[in-house]
């Protein structure tokens, strides 16, 4: 529908549900609502489509050969902020690039205050979210191995058997069995059986772009929904602000710009609005939408939008192993332990996971020998062989829980604007004081576990890096809670201030856990969808 407003034509798109953002959390919500309600659904994505499955072999080849980005047109020039952010603005979002590691958060993640006296409890428990973990795993297709139930609780089996171990990883697993630390296979959103019409993994080790479709990417879900006529997907359209119904706190319109016709504004009108724009752009949109009733931004009566930005840091190291491995046969699989994410009672707080990969660190070909002399041809090969014949390397990494400060914050940066003149987000992450006090203890504890692993192999720790200060799998900014004074959304992702506005996934996190976060973002989004369903026409 188009309407003339002044001299410009304003396009109006109406639906029951308007989902802002076209990433993995949007795909989860759209899919569930499409299946379980009769609602009309519009998904608005600022980016466009990137390489189709057919094109991924070619882009993969160039990525391998030259390190080129295998996802063409996956960002918008000038639409970028400061601080740890993804620049993927594209149908499918950052999960076009992702590796697909999908561990669950542990029960402890939801009860940090009750169990350990740190940070805040979530308004939901592990038991509340568990069915949605399962649902998310089934929607994307997860291949996993059941770990020890006390560290890997689940009510149903994984949808698919685990990815097989490579020869090297199988030897590494034998090594870990000499310790009291249980390891099992990392769960992956990669097929070990044909799943939803997608192929089985072929072990080709370029998972950031999968040429076979074995790795789940959200475009597959959108394509299915489009084919079934269940959604409208409006691409290259950036939502710039949300505005209210006159005299009410309900959202009436998402005002957007079609990047191909910037002079013709687009209005999305809906009964329910869902912000699924990821950890950065969700808070950003709320802040941009300030008006006279909400001068600090929508959903921000208590000033919590953009606060408690969270994620986790990691410590990484390399271990010399006295065994011959063959790195390169299935590098993208790894071993996982969640033993220390569920540590039981603690004197001092530290929680982390452990992951192990094969590695060729210190065992790559080189041009100079031990004494710095230049090597030629066969000498290079001989030197390389000597370093791989009876020894090898493993990479070990621990994501650890870092508790966010209230001032870990996303704000609007007036000094950096996009082509439309809108201020871009700036994220200044900051750990809570209690977390800063725990840093040395955390690093010492984890380093001790790296040493323990190395000793069990009869090997040695080759190196341990400094803590990565990148807030991985970031979330927060619209944290959930029962008390509007300290949170932005309720347990269902519904904003306290606007009854028809939901924020889903990453932004609603209370703390960042010590596991890759996307499965949890998806499970939270599905919980939100369950609540939305109640007010939508039935299927």
């Amino acid at each position, binding site marked *: 529908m188009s309407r003339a407003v002044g001299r410009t034509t304003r396009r109006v798109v109406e639906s029951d549900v308007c989902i802002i953002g076209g990433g993995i959390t949007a795909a989860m919500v759209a899919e569930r609502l499409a299946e379980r309600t009769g609602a009309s659904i519009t998904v608005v994505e600022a980016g466009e489509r990137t390489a189709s499955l057919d094109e991924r072999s070619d882009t993969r080849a160039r*990525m391998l050969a030259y390190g080129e980005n295998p996802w063409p047109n996956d*960002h918008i020039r000038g639409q970028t902020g400061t601080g740890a952010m993804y620049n993927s603005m594209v149908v499918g979002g950052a999960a076009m690039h992702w590796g697909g590691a999908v561990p669950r958060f542990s029960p402890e993640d939801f009860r940090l205050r009750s169990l350990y006296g740190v940070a805040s409890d979530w308004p939901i428990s592990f038991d509340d979210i568990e069915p949605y973990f399962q649902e998310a795993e089934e929607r994307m297709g997860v291949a996993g191995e059941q770990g020890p139930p006390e560290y890997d609780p689940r009510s149903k089996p994984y949808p698919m058997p685990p990815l097989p171990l490579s020869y090297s990883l199988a030897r590494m697993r034998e090594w870990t069995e000499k310790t009291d630390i249980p390891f099992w296979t990392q769960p992956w959103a990669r097929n070990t059986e044909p799943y939803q019409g997608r192929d089985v993994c*072929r*072990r*080709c080790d*370029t998972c950031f772009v999968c040429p076979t479709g074995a790795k789940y990417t959200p475009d597959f879900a959108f394509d299915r929904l489009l084919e079934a006529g269940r959604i409208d997907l409006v691409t290259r359209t950036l939502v710039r602000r949300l505005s209210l119904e006159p005299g009410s706190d309900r959202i009436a319109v998402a005002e957007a710009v079609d990047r191909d016709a910037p002079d013709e504004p687009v209005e999305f009108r809906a009964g329910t609005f869902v912000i699924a724009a990821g950890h950065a752009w969700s808070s950003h949109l709320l802040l941009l939408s300030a008006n006279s009733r909400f001068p600090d931004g929508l959903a921000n009566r208590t000033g919590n939008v953009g606060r408690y930005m969270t994620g986790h840091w990691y410590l990484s190291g390399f271990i010399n192993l006295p065994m011959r491995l*063959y790195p390169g046969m*299935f590098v993208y699989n790894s071993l996982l332990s969640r033993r220390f994410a569920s540590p039981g009672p603690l004197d001092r707080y530290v929680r982390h996971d452990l992951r192990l990969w094969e590695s060729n660190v210190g065992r790559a070909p080189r041009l100079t020998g031990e004494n710095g002399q*230049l090597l030629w041809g066969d000498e290079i*090969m001989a030197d390389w062989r000597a370093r791989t014949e009876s020894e090898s390397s493993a990479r070990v990494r621990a994501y650890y829980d870092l508790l966010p400060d209230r001032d870990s914050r996303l704000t609007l940066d007036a000094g950096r604007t996009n082509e439309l003149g809108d201020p871009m987000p700036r994220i200044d992450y900051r750990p809570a004081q209690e977390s800063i006090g725990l840093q040395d203890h955390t690093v010492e504890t984890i380093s001790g576990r790296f040493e323990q692993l190395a000793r069990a192999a009869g090997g040695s720790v080759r190196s341990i890096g400094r803590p990565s200060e990148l807030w991985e799998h970031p979330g927060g900014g619209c944290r959930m809670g029962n008390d509007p004074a300290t949170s932005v959304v309720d347990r269902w992702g519904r904003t306290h201030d606007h009854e028809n506005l939901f924020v889903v996934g990453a932004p609603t996190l209370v703390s960042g856990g010590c596991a890759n976060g996307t499965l949890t973002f998806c499970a939270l989004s599905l919980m939100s969808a369950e609540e939305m369903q109640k007010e939508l026409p039935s299927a």
Partner: protein
Amino acid sequence: MAESRRTFLKQSAATVAAVSLTGCAPGERAAETEGDALSRTDGTTPVPLPAATLRGVAEAVLPDELGEDGRERAVRAFERWSEALEPVAELSHPYLVPEIRYSGPDPRPGWAAQLEGLEKECESRHGVSLSDLEVPGRRELLARPLADTGPGLGAPQNADHVVAALLAHFFGSAIATDLCYGRAIRRELCRSIEGAEEEPAPLGAAP
């Protein structure tokens, strides 16, 4: 051992010839190594690298165990790779870094000039072309450009000198890894999910 390596090198060439260039058919060889699946999209014609000098360099720096055929294949792979290289291409995004990064300017005019320079230097010092100079003499000429390279090989497109680029391209390939380990590891090859745990077969014995 030498026999099985030769068989391996022949087989890997046959595998490349047989696979389709789209899709990831089981057995598809990583384009990185062979360069066959790479196509240019920027429509420009790259500066060719002087072929004879490049081969003269290869003989001095690549392993003898490749034999003449294997060395020629490695040089051809490097040439194809270099022909399909696109300068200032958008690079893979590093995790959680919002800035977009691009590859550097075209290294090939510089590489071609370096090869021509080596040829001239050889002529003036020794009165013969590089390919006709004894291998130790060639290495003496090549030691200088390699002296500043550092121990690691890095990505070939980032190499300042063509000799480092050739070495990085070959030693970074799946074929070089297999030769080093004497096993058919076949990095980045599409294959069945079955049999993942098996020790990779010795070279020559691999199907």
